[in-house]
């Protein structure tokens, strides 16, 4: 195998992280402080997610890593290689085949099952941080359930833009208690968090926080009665596979204003094309 301890981290570090994960599961949405370690990759590359994954993996697991929905981007490939080398686990790009999925900023389109664990990489775990810079104050606000400031922020969105303009990292309330940052997933993905069959774990390395959602936990996106939450996406089908229900990336294809929309979830798009679905520009793509 390798000269590393299984899954890279030393055992005492893993125990510390595991204890934090258990507290997070017992108090859904509460950010548990943990002693984040220096990892062989810089902050911002998913060190929190990597530490949570390292503490969660067993040799029997099959790992999938996605970055903005894609399996083949630098971040996803390097983290997958990291665990292939240090934990000797199998890896996959197929959502249904994976038992642990580490993700940066997306939830796979395919519904997850009870046998899966979804690990999010989180940059700023504190949903109130951009409204209140002091940790002492935000901690107090969580303790007192004082979330008025967040509603003021959403209200100001409406006053300025005529709608809630927050499109990603859209704040949620967990089981009617803690307001939580869902990590910078598009708000299109927010409804998938609620009642999910899989365990959801969140790791923020630089900010040293772990939080979690047990399966079938109620997660509600904050909104107003007259301005209800809407899970939005680009108003177009995927140009490669024709999917109308998946979250899309807009890709500029030339310098003459040409563009196309493609599924952000590359595995979902690949599986649909393999099953014979073709989008508006799918044919040319296949020929090229």
């Amino acid at each position, binding site marked *: 195998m390798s000269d590393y301890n299984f899954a890279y981290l030393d055992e005492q570090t893993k125990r510390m992280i*595991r*204890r*934090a994960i258990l507290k997070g599961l017992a108090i859904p949405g509460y950010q548990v402080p943990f002693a984040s370690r220096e990892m062989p990759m810089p902050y911002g590359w998913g060190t929190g997610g990597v530490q949570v994954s390292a503490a969660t993996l*067993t040799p029997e697991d099959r790992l999938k890593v996605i970055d903005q929905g894609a399996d083949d981007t630098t971040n996803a490939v390097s983290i997958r290689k990291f665990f292939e080398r240090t934990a000797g686990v199998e890896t996959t790009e197929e959502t249904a085949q994976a038992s642990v999925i580490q993700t940066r900023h997306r939830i796979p389109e395919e519904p997850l099952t009870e046998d899966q664990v979804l690990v999010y990489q989180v940059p700023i775990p504190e949903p109130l941080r951009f409204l209140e810079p002091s940790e002492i104050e935000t901690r107090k606000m969580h*303790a007192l359930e004082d979330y008025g400031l967040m509603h003021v922020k959403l209200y100001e969105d409406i006053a300025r833009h005529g709608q809630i303009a927050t499109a990603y990292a859209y704040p949620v309330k967990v089981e009617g208690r803690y307001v939580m940052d869902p990590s910078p997933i598009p708000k299109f993905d927010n409804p998938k968090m609620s009642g999910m069959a899989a*365990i959801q774990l969140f790791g923020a390395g630089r900010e040293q926080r772990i939080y979690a959602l*047990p*399966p079938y936990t109620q997660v509600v996106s904050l909104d107003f009665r007259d301005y209800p939450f809407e899970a939005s996406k680009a108003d177009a089908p995927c140009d490669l596979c024709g999917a109308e229900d998946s979250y899309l990336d807009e890709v500029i294809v030339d310098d003459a204003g040409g563009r196309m929309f493609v599924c952000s979830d590359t595995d979902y798009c690949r599986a649909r094309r393999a099953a014979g679905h073709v989008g508006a520009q799918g044919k040319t793509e296949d020929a090229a």
Partner: protein
Amino acid sequence: MDAAVLKGGFRDAPVDAARAFRAAMQAMARPGTIHDVAGAEPPAPLSQAAGVLILTLCDPETAVHLAGAHDCAEVRDWITFHAGAPLVGAEDCDFALGTWEALHPLDRFRIGTAQYPDRSATLIVERWELKAEGATLTGPGIRETARMSLPEVAAFRANAARFPLGWDAYFCAGNRLAALPRSTQVEG
């Protein structure tokens, strides 16, 4: 200290602990589910599952309280050798180990603070058997309802009522374990 104390730990610590943690995590994430664990052979009266939890979660950074019959030389020496955890009184512990009766009174255990509800104790309760019947459980981790044989209902209801404060509990019998976090609502 005799040589028996040195035995019964994980054979392959990183891998045994990883598998045990996954079972412990599933138990805590899905209250009412019962999971098999393996890898530890602790001295009596410690159950195998309780021994596995100690080896997986405890180390010199966690204070352990031994209640009742569990506070014996064999168990003390085994935990000290294999986990290195300091043994303390109920008020200061991160993990408390014993039968349900021995763990009483329960108001001795830390339940966290409003700002840090995670600074609370986890009870490891030794049981004769675990069954998916009895009290009705609802809450996070449970699709509709689950059932679990609990030693009593009142204490768990009172514990859930002060959410997000409270302690969390593991139940161990033989090589099986289940969990009941503070977030679970219990109906007799």
